């Protein structure tokens, strides 16, 4: 990796980050100006709650993808965490015990992924498609098709509530803190540098004294813990534990991360862009729904944005070179 190369790469990432953040801000402004009640405090709260699970899971996912791997099992981990939460609540366990158990469960599920990928050296795409089915299946085994409700109001109210009389939802605190933690880790610590190094070239990283396997293993554990937390928050938000909670969310998360400028081949990406990607997807969805645009259009917009986010920079690069 020559210094020059590093510089252009940094330049391109910065460009895309600025671009995606600019697009997101633009969309927010246009939506606030043209869509009735998009800009209200209450709608802001709904928006944050709607993008909460994607925002949380996207954080560790960014790190995982930067190392050149992927974790498609996150939504199923979320579902299994929710199902176990419902099961234990029905078994009359105190919620203060259940929540840490769900986080621990997330860690174990993540560790299983990590084991298959790093110890056995299996391709992460295949492994996590397998655990996607496995974890979701186990969620149904645990809870069947039933729903568990009646979680304590203190907890559900906190998740759906706002800070004092401001329109700022409580869960935004969780998002901000975790985003800051992951942002600092990725961009300002040796761990973050190791993540980029492994993504750029595992062999080279190994020569530089990094242990890629161990790093990836812990990233999968982190991914599992956050997905477990997302399962807990999801359950409390809807006050309903179900085995099918969050089904299909993994694709939205991957879409948001890639839209945020992270390369699927690893080695490139930045967290601010990812957060912009999450906000962009969430607010587009919210604004279009308020304007009575159908769900179908949302599908098309998501898909096109996803392809464009990779195609755009590629084409731009090609044009510049010729």
């Amino acid at each position, binding site marked *: 990796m020559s210094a020059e190369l590093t510089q252009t790469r940094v330049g391109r990432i910065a460009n895309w980050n600025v671009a995606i953040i600019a697009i997101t801000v633009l969309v927010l402004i246009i939506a606030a100006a043209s869509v*009735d*009640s*998009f800009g*209200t405090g*209450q*709608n802001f709260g*709904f928006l944050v709650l*709607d993008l909460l699970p994607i925002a949380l899971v996207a954080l560790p996912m960014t790190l995982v993808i930067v190392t050149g791997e992927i974790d498609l099992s996150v939504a199923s981990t979320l579902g299994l965490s929710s199902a176990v939460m419902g099961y234990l*609540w*029905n078994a*009359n*366990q*105190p*919620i*203060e*015990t259940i*929540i*840490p*158990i769900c*986080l*621990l469960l997330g*860690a*174990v599920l993540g*560790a299983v992924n990590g084991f298959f990928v790093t110890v056995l050296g299996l391709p992460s795409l295949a492994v996590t498609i397998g655990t996607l089915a496995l974890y979701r299946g186990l969620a149904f085994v645990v809870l*069947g*098709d*039933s*729903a568990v*409700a*009646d979680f*304590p*109001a*203190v*907890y*559900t*109210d906190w998740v*759906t509530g706002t800070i004092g009389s401001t329109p700022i939802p409580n869960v935004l605190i969780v998002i901000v803190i975790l985003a800051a933690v992951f942002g600092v880790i990725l961009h300002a610590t040796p761990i973050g540098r190791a993540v980029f190094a492994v993504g750029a070239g595992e062999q080279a990283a190994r020569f530089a004294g990094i242990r890629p396997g161990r790093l990836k293993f812990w990233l999968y*554990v982190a991914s599992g*813990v956050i997905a477990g937390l997302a399962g807990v928050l*999801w359950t409390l938000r*809807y*006050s*309903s534990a*179900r085995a*099918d*909670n969050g*089904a299909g969310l993994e694709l939205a998360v991957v879409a948001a991360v890639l839209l945020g400028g992270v390369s699927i081949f690893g080695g490139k990406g930045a967290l601010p862009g990812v957060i912009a990607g999450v906000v962009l997807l969430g607010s587009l969805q*919210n604004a279009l*729904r*308020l304007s*009575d645009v159908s*769900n*179908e259009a949302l599908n098309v917009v998501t898909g096109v944005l996803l392809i464009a986010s990779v195609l755009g920079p590629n084409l731009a690069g090609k044009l510049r070179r010729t």
Partner: protein
Amino acid sequence: MRKPITVAVALLALTACGGTTKSSTEGQNTPAPQGTAGKADPNAPLKEGLKIAYLPKQLNNPYTDVEVGGGKVAVDEIKGTYKLVGPNDASASSQVSYINTLIQQQQDVIVVAANDPNAVCPSLNQARKAGIKVVTFDSDASKTCRDAFINQATTQGIGESLVKMASELAGGSGEIAVLSATPNATNQNSWIEVMKTELAKPENAKLKLVKIAYGNDDDQKSFTEAQGLLQSYPNLKVIVSPTTVGIAAASRYVSASSYKGKVAITGLGLPNQMRQYVKDGTVKKFALWNPADIGYLAAYAGAAMSSGQITGAEGEKFKAGKLGEYTVGADGEIVLGPPTEFTADNIDKFNF
């Protein structure tokens, strides 16, 4: 994994001396706001220009289309604004997003079929706090978070008529199975409960309910489940499917298989979907209420509430256009009427 374990242990230790459990919070969960309870004024005029929004379990379902179609007719009659929104998957979480959107759009009435009786509750209560009247149909939400529920027929009436049809088709004795929607569909389960009570009666002692299968209201899944039932229970005489998706899928499977003529299908179905199977002899009889009337009645109930004619309390009366006068029952339930039985003789008279 050292760190999470330490954290978990610390938290466990912290909470070891008594935490919040299901039994400790039973009954403590906040009851709903009692609407903007005022007094009902039966003589108040029906307001014009009401914004009435329909939120079914999911779009793209022929039965739902008929229901909300009736709703549109009623909304036009009372000069309101009709709106239809809904998810493409029957999930509770996407319904919540739609309810939130409807609150922002300041609708007057939300007519909703709940995918999960509890998950939609907080949002529905937020809507009611904003002055929106909430009417449920098809699948009720918890009583604490809606103003009225349009019941297509009494649970008792449907359960009884399902068992009666099954008994007639089985000739009074033999094995029967149920092909339901999802295992936590509120309406399905209460009908099945009534069926079980009915089957326990001496006159039905020779009928044996061998299995309740779930097709998740998914055509392909119901098809496969019907297939599985017939393989597992060779002596099966009747499949009772109290869902339009299930009965159509089961009929289609049986009509093209070697079981045709040996196994009877009955339950709740749409005449248009079932016509073919009634004509080819696969299905002798099935029942249903007119779904369009449900959406129709819901619009009038919502409008009557929004205009202050009723509050949703037991005993209040209101007029529902061509359907005549209705009385609100216990717990805000409004019952549409008895179901109709369809056979080869009368099916051509119905078009829905």
